[in-house]
């Protein structure tokens, strides 16, 4: 399964690569994005970014750091508003705008293409645009306009559309509509920054984490030690593992390794500093409020403590199905009922800060010893040590891994006992060793056109298993097919649809797919009585007919085995 990174499709090389073409403003930011979008090599991306950091204005740099570390500006206007204003501006009927949108598949780009270019003379021969305000001007204006009357927003947006070039307008729209994504990792951005500011990447990664406001923080402040010290909430960058690539014996002596279960909850850091408690998720969201159970830690933990762990649905010494936690994730207000029905616990993995001191450089065995001492002293049933799985040889560990699903674990983690707590995703010292997904063969029964970019193709399918001579739909699954396969299935749907219900078509049950999923739980919201976790199409079984698919009984058996 290829991991799909959200990408702000920015392929275009119609501009020269010389740094001299960087003229500042929105244009140079747009140019950076296009270069990142076109280069396939990490080194080229690194060069593009460090070139940008070397020349861009200070305030823009802060915003680029913010944007590339997931701090997107909030949506200032709705897509519908933008569409309406665009059609008004250029005098096109809305149906024609929609035709265009369906062909382009992206609202920001549709508008960027529809607004006429100012004139050819605004493109200098270098292909760089000398017009347009700097990036920070636009993003900060969005923030200021958030509560402004609609007429004021509209005026600003229409003016900006007319003064920007098509490419800059596209980026402007992406930022404006809250749909800005960038297919570059934070790590790469940090490495590029390190080339220009004489700081270690790890130091930068730490300094740019946590709570800061791009509009009021200067570039120098952001990267100085001072801010880190005054911001007590600041988490450390998470250390993430790659999937195990080699055979176990390649890892060397089993005794050098600590094995733990791999849990699938919310990876987080619990921070107690300056008498305050902060809970951060791996996505760098402050989620303290969502877990009132942990508030007791404000008194119990000593100041200057940072624990890395997994927040899991947990009750009476048992990790529950992740589905349980889903009922309270995303809720604005957590009620007593949620706390009772979806109790959580923290499985502590690691200790990053002790008595106000960063101990990430210590060996895992030392950090683990300190962690054990701390957690045991707390004597709180919902704060547990992530249990260490003891094993003497790799064969034994392989057998143990088979048990993972029985305890709602995803597999094993292997950590070198001598390893420091590193920054970001690294190879070598930590590995995840997940169990294979569950799979089931099913037949496609409904198809729906995809959203946005896929709006011309049938790409969203519903699948069914057999129950006697009936077919019971049990899951949707999206990704996992190649573009070519999507086109083939799309053609099949168009030829073989039986009925139409709004956007949904019922399809002749003929195509068989293997659906992979990570977990299964009982559900009364689904006709089949089961809900799958992370269902996706793993392959198209062109070798199978609907006769060969799995049955509802097969699903129920899986539920009994793994659905606790």
């Amino acid at each position, binding site marked *: 399964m290829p991991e799909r990174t959200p990408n702000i499709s920015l392929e275009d090389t119609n501009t020269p690569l010389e740094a001299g073409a960087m003229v500042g403003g929105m244009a140079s930011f747009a140019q950076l994005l296009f270069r990142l979008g076109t280069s396939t090599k990490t080194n080229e991306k690194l060069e593009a970014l460090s070139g940008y950091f070397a020349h861009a204005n200070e305030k823009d740099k802060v915003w680029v750091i913010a944007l590339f570390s997931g701090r997107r500006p909030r949506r200032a206007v709705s897509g519908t508003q933008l569409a309406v204003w665009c059609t008004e501006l250029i005098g096109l009927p809305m149906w024609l705008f929609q035709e265009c949108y369906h062909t382009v598949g992206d609202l920001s*780009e549709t508008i960027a293409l529809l607004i006429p270019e100012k004139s050819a003379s605004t493109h200098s021969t270098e292909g760089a645009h000398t017009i347009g305000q700097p990036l920070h001007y636009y993003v900060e204006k969005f923030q200021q306009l958030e509560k402004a009357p609609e007429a004021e927003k509209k005026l600003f947006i229409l003016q900006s559309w007319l003064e920007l070039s098509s490419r800059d307008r596209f980026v402007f729209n992406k930022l404006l509509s809250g749909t800005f994504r960038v297919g570059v990792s934070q790590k790469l951005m940090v490495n590029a920054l390190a080339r220009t500011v004489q700081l270690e990447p790890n130091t930068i990664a730490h300094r740019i984490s946590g709570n800061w406001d791009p509009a009021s923080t200067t570039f120098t402040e952001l990267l100085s030690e001072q801010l880190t010290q005054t911001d007590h909430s600041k988490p450390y960058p998470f250390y993430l593992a790659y999937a195990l690539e080699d055979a176990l014996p390649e890892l060397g002596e089993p005794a050098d390794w600590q094995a733990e279960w791999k849990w699938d909850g919310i990876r987080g850091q619990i921070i107690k500093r300056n008498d305050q408690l902060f809970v951060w998720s791996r996505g760098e969201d402050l989620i303290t409020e969502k877990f009132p159970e942990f508030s007791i830690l404000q008194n119990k933990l000593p100041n200057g403590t940072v624990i890395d762990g997994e927040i899991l649905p947990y009750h009476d010494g048992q990790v529950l199905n992740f589905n349980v936690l889903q009922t309270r994730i995303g809720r604005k207000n957590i009620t007593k009922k949620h706390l009772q029905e979806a109790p959580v616990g923290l499985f502590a993995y690691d200790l990053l800060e002790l008595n106000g001191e960063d101990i990430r450089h210590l060996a895992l065995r030392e950090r683990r010893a300190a962690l054990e001492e701390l957690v045991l002293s707390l004597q709180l049933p919902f704060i547990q040590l992530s249990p260490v799985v003891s094993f003497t040889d790799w064969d034994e560990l392989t057998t143990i891994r088979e048990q993972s699903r029985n305890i709602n674990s995803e597999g094993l983690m292997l950590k070198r006992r001598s390893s420091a707590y590193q920054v970001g995703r690294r190879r070598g010292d930590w590995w995840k060793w997940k169990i294979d997904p569950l799979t089931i063969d099913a037949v496609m029964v409904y198809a729906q056109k995809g959203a946005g970019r896929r709006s011309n193709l049938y790409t969203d399918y519903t699948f069914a298993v057999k129950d006697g001579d009936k077919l019971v739909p049990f899951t949707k699954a999206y990704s996992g097919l190649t573009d070519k396969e999507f086109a083939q299935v799309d053609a099949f749907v168009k030829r073989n649809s039986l009925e139409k219900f709004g956007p949904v078509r019922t399809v002749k049950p003929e195509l068989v797919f293997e659906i992979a999923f990570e977990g299964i739980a009982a559900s009364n919201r689904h006709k089949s009585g089961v809900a799958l976790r992370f269902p996706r199409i793993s392959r198209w079984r062109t070798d199978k007919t609907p006769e060969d698919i799995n049955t509802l009984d097969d699903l129920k058996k899986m539920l009994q085995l793994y659905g606790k």
Partner: protein
Amino acid sequence: MPLISFTDKGLYCEAGQFYIDPWQPVDKAVITHAHSDHARAGSQAYLCHHDTLPLLQLRLGPNHYQPVAWNEKITMNEVTVSLHPAGHIIGSSQVRVEYKGEVWVVSGDYKTEADGISGIFEPIPCHTFISESTFGLPIYNWKPQDELFQEIQNWIRNNQVAGKTSVLIGYSLGKAQRLLKALGEVTGTIYAHGAIWNVHETLLQAGWKLPAIQRVTPEIPKESYRGHVVLAPPSADGSLWMRRFPSASTGICSGWMQVRGHQRRRNADAGFALSDHADWNGLLQSVKATGAQKVYITHGFQSAFSRYLIEIGISAAEVKTEFGEEEEGAPADPLKGDEEGNSPPPPPAGGEDEFAPL
């Protein structure tokens, strides 16, 4: 009986007993241009422009051909037929048909910008105009040719600096000839795929003065391509043939490259929205300039374009034709939208729904 009717063999003029760009064998075919979806084999006799003749001979072999000049009036059973420049590719023509004072014009494929080799499109006053609509949506408005050539040249220069081979994908008839002069300004040797080389030789023999190109052959050491430009047709894109070029950077020249998603789907390193078809404004202006009372819209975005024409007060209707099939003889791949294709490539996967249609 209308002067030109839409039959299952193609556009038919009964009064004159001839077809225009028929897709099935007929007795008499008037051909707008030499692209394979407009010039098909099997007919008894062909009428075309002088410049189209050698290209038709290359494509269809020996046959009964009657070449004519632009504006030359030919009479067929009291119907007067003349060809007029369409600006699409070398020799491309619109067909004017007049009978008892009634004038119809069939556009064939056309573009309104003068490209330097394809003749200059001129709107022909008529009562009824049959227009293509390959790029009949307002998102398709082209940058001027000079600007696009500069972008292509910049791209090549950057590839040269990076020690890469620039592989440009464009149709062997049309795009390839149009690009040559601009390419010659930035590269020592222009290498070309055999399909392009064939067309090139034919045109040279017909007396065209074109910059020299070198055919890609197995004997040429791979390293000689580095830093130079290779021209290839869309059918070669992604084929084994392409693998011989060291550190290739691929650029596609096609109107579909206007939309990023289509560019990404083609998996190219660069895309240039250089088209041999009229853009939205070009189509609109041409339709208006003919002064036609009735407009028929063929291959492309015919339903959107004709609906829009009706809304602005022009009597229009869409017509289904079999133009716009893949040329170059490559197997049709639903994911490879091509310049001459009658539907755009599907939008790319990924992304999110940010705009629920109203």
